[in-house]
């Protein structure tokens, strides 16, 4: 409980704008606890009504993919072009599909 570190932990901030979009990462900040992180996020990231909802997550709780493994991780998506509708040629007679 009495760690020598007096610095406030880092929090990642996600804001949802009023237009029904998903929460989006906007940056990070330091705060002693979650309540303070919310208040600081309001002052830092929504001074011009950029959002209607804020999520704060401790940076240390985020698990990220390793950029070095980018190739292996995302490669399976590259050779499945049939997943895109434009892969299929439609007869001209079909106007809309």
């Amino acid at each position, binding site marked *: *409980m*009495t760690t020598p570190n*007096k*610095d*406030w932990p*880092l929090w990642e901030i996600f804001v949802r704008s009023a237009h029904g979009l998903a929460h989006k990462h906007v*940056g*990070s*900040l*330091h705060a*002693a*606890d979650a309540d*303070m992180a919310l208040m600081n996020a309001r*002052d*830092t990231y929504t*001074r*011009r009504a950029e959002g209607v909802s804020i999520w704060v997550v401790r940076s240390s709780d985020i698990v*990220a993919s*390793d*950029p070095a493994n980018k190739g292996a991780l995302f490669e399976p998506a590259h050779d499945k072009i049939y997943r895109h509708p434009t892969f299929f040629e439609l007869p001209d007679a079909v106007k809309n599909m």
Partner: protein
Amino acid sequence: MYSQMVDTGVSKVRNTADMDDAERAFQARIDALEKIEPNDFMPQSYRQTLIRQISQHAHSEIVGMLPEGNWITRAPSLKRKAILVAKVQDEAGHGLYLYCAAETLGAERGRLTADMLSGKAKYSSIFNYPTLTWADVGAIGWLVDGAAIMNQIPLCRCSYGPYARAMIRVCKEESFHQRQGFDLMLALCRGTPEQKAMAQDALNRWWWPVVMMFGPPDDKSVHSAQSKAWRIKLFSNDELRQKFIDQTVPQAELLGLTIPDEHLKLNPDTGHYETGPIDWDELFRVIAGNGPCNRERLQARREAHDEGAWVREAAIAHARKKAARNQPHQEAAQ
């Protein structure tokens, strides 16, 4: 600029022959205008230079609150006071966006602050000048923020993702800063002769420091070439300075103010304004710590840091106590 003479740690631009494979691949990504993200490979010198540049930029935003904060309690109307409070709060926000960008490079916030307070890390020379009258608040918004925008708009396209994204946020807000400054100057220039004289006096004192704020001339700017190769500087000091002067001189004419440079003239062939000689010794003097307010600014930051220490400690103690109290509930839930 908000970051001046940032040391790149190299004496000449690294060419491909000096680089190993990883560095060559890194430079190729930059040349292809790809964004570098926090966990990507980057040469140590790129990382360190960016930490210096971004933190210097952040310190400038924070110290930059002091000259304007000086006038909050003496703003001439409630409207002007509310605008100035909002503007100064924005500067705090800009500092925070930038510190967070520096932290994505592995820099520790406490370390960055300590380096600024000890004088090891620099902030922009411009904030070492005093705000003697209300017109200075207008001059800062119009000229200093106007100059900052010149530099920050290209930085929205810089190679480091978190820095570029922070700049996009900053630029959106900076435009309000410049306009409120110009609006303030306009009000003074349309006011009494005394008010107009006050505006002219502010322009007289701020013009040259703002012109110098872009940094030394290109032939004396030793680190610019490497920073350009890394795309963390997109235009040279002289290019940005010229752009600023070309844009600002007509605005001064519109205000009915005179730029304090008897040699200033428009070159009809190039379409650019040419200035008289610039006293670079003054810039180097201010950067070395001997401007009019260097000591006062650092003293104010140190006092704020020291006097806020108990608040930071109390907040973390409170957070830990609360976390400890909630511990049994969490275990029960599992």
